[in-house]
């Protein structure tokens, strides 16, 4: 147990150090103007407590929690994308996939990062790469050109109405 904990702490520190080099090439964010590249000083010097997985949750509970967390995000783009994604995939995810998704939407501190990875505007850090990230990227491309005007209503979950 301690070995796992130590490894996680080491990974976290490693990632914090690694981040500046990941982002160094041209900052591909919304609006840059003449501003210099992001030094990420705050992220390096003010580390937040590391995210940890929740213990002892049933799969059903995980799905319910992840639904809430998919629908309530920091900005509209993620609200729409993730709630549509959750509608399509959440109820059929396996346990591994649920855990991947949990980490993807809960660990990154900046919601924009998730958006940039999903839109392939920025490379996905290794820790988040995997099945779920691939599904999300594919979903974001919107190959079927469906209209993505709003987050879906919750009634698709109402067993009684089906």
């Amino acid at each position, binding site marked *: 147990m301690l070995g796992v904990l130590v490894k996680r702490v080491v990974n976290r520190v490693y990632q914090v150090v690694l981040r500046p080099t990941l982002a160094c090439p041209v900052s591909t964010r919304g*609006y840059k103007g003449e501003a210099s590249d*992001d030094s990420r000083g705050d992220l390096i010097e003010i580390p*937040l407590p590391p995210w940890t997985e929740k213990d002892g949750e049933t799969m059903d509970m995980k799905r319910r*929690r992840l639904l809430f967390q998919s629908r309530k995000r*920091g*900005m*509209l783009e993620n609200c729409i994308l993730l709630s549509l994604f959750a509608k399509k995939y959440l109820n059929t995810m396996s346990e591994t996939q649920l855990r991947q998704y949990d980490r993807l939407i809960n660990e990154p501190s*900046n919601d924009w990062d998730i958006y940039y990875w999903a839109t392939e505007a920025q490379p996905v850090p290794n820790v988040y790469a995997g099945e779920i990230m691939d599904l999300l990227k594919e979903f974001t491309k919107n190959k079927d050109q469906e209209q993505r005007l709003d987050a879906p209503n*919750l009634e698709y979950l*109402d067993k009684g109405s089906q």
Partner: protein
Amino acid sequence: MAAVCIASRVLTKKVLSSKALPAVSQSSRKLHFSIYGKSNAKVSDGISTQYPVVDHEFDAVVVGAGGAGLRAAFGLSEAGFNTACVTKLFPTRSHTVAAQGGINAALGNMENDDWRWHFYDTVKGSDWLGDQDAIHYMTEQAPHAVVELENFGMPFSRTDDGKIYQRAFGGQSLKYGKGGQAHRCCCVADRTGHSLLHTLYGRSLRYDTSYFVEYFALDLLMEDGEMGPSTASGPRTQSSPLLWLTYSGSCTSAHTSTGDGNAMVTRAGLPCQDLEFVQFHPTGIYGAGCLITEGCRGEGGILINSEGERFMERYAPNAKDLASRDVVSRSITIEIREGRGCGPEKDHAYLQLHHLPPQQLATRLPGISETAMIFAGVDVTKEPIPVLPTVHYNMGGIPTNYKGQVITHTPEEGDKVVPGLFACGEAACASVHGANRLGANSLLDLVVFGRACAHTITDICTPGEKLSPLKPNAGEESVANLDRLRFANGSLRTSEIRLNMQKTMQNHAAVFRTGKVLKEGCDKMDAVYQTLDDIKTFDRGIVWNTDLVETLELQNLMLNAVQTINSAEQRQESRGAHSREDFKDREDEYDYTKPLAGQQRKPIEQHWRKHTLSTVDPKTGKVTLKYRPVIDNSLDAEDCAAVPPAIRSY
């Protein structure tokens, strides 16, 4: 493992307490949340046995962990108060993270600058509905606030010689409007909002702030009315603003912005101020509503109509596409109404970027390309983006003075402080934005007034003061409401009622408003409000019940919506973001289009340069409106002369 639904009463000093229900349940092993909090909670059996109530004691409680809430929580913790912060979302995921523009401050790094010019710009931007003492406070404190943030660790972007880089933003000028465009917006690359949240959250943890994350605040519990003899104590700040989730025009904010703060205050019997002033951001993506930042136009993007004309040259000859947001929104709407809209239904405008060099697009505006492709299917290097004015911000909210204290108002006694209650952020109305907000002033508003709340509380109270006892059944109504909603089995689903509300607001209270349409809207909204009694939820669970949370949010949205539309219907003038086709002019105490000499000053009942104070009876949905005069003097007339009203043109 049985999951138990727990209600928490978070007690603060004296008059005011707030109560929160965890969206997640705790197992019966841990009766109160916390990784970072204190273990001082006790279970009480006052209210009900089905929902065990846990009482927590703190010196100060902050509701909402956006920029303003975090700044207040941090300030209070630093000053030694045992502080709790209750938040619906993880702090760095608050809607503040969406802010990519920056914070305005007259640091004078790009050119000679003076905070009094910023003061002038803000007063003018507010269309003289802003309280000049609060605006004075905000613009004077701005440079200090930015430097302070920098000292906390926010890595502002820098110029080559090491000073904080500042960029242009709409509505900011030099020399009281006569010196051209000012560059006073400080930023952290394009991550200003996130950096602000990260820095403040991280710092506040070092001072031992307790966070109740993913807890939904239900209600404020007022003891003995709000006029207690005790001095102000437990603060309450709320950073979730109102924006109704409109339908076709959508809104630009996250679906978490549901007006919880305003609604809590309304249910406590206190008024909200100026809710009819809704800012429409001129460029939201047609349909989805995702915002295309003003920075695009700052980089050279232009708005065109169906004839390919750069129409802003007609409406704002000097500022053109960088005119103030309400001016641009109105211009786009006029173009559409006069038949020059784009698209098959001629119902939007185009934002053209493909005339800019591709290199500039790639380095300066790359995120825009993604958003345009994903939600609108447009390649910005080839085609223009379809845009429409979209609900973006509400200038109104909980009325406060410039120190952050919540106030009520009577004509006899004037403004009166509500002891123990403070508000800051988008939820509050200080009022610095008046009838229209300038871009990059909102992040400033958050930081300055979050800080002001913390300072005021530090001045008035001491940490560790004893709390007066709370009635054992305080909060009963909130729990009863929760229980009722959880088992609601009427005939209309939450999403149906919400859609009805959205459609009504979009059709009756959008950019352009007319008396007849507004009146119809008020009646329709009243009918929609009544349907809340017939609501139907489907999720009976007590753990992670998203349906229940969204239903509670709908109740909050509804309270905001009725106030907005009723206030808009009553206000018979056009000012700032509130535009009436049947009353196109501003109605001030004097007619400022003509010389003042010889004019008689109109009494407050006969003009509209005043704040609206609205209250709602939650049981019936009936809205009552009163008015409050605007504060026209600055904090120090010698240091900073107040700006007398004038005609507002750019």
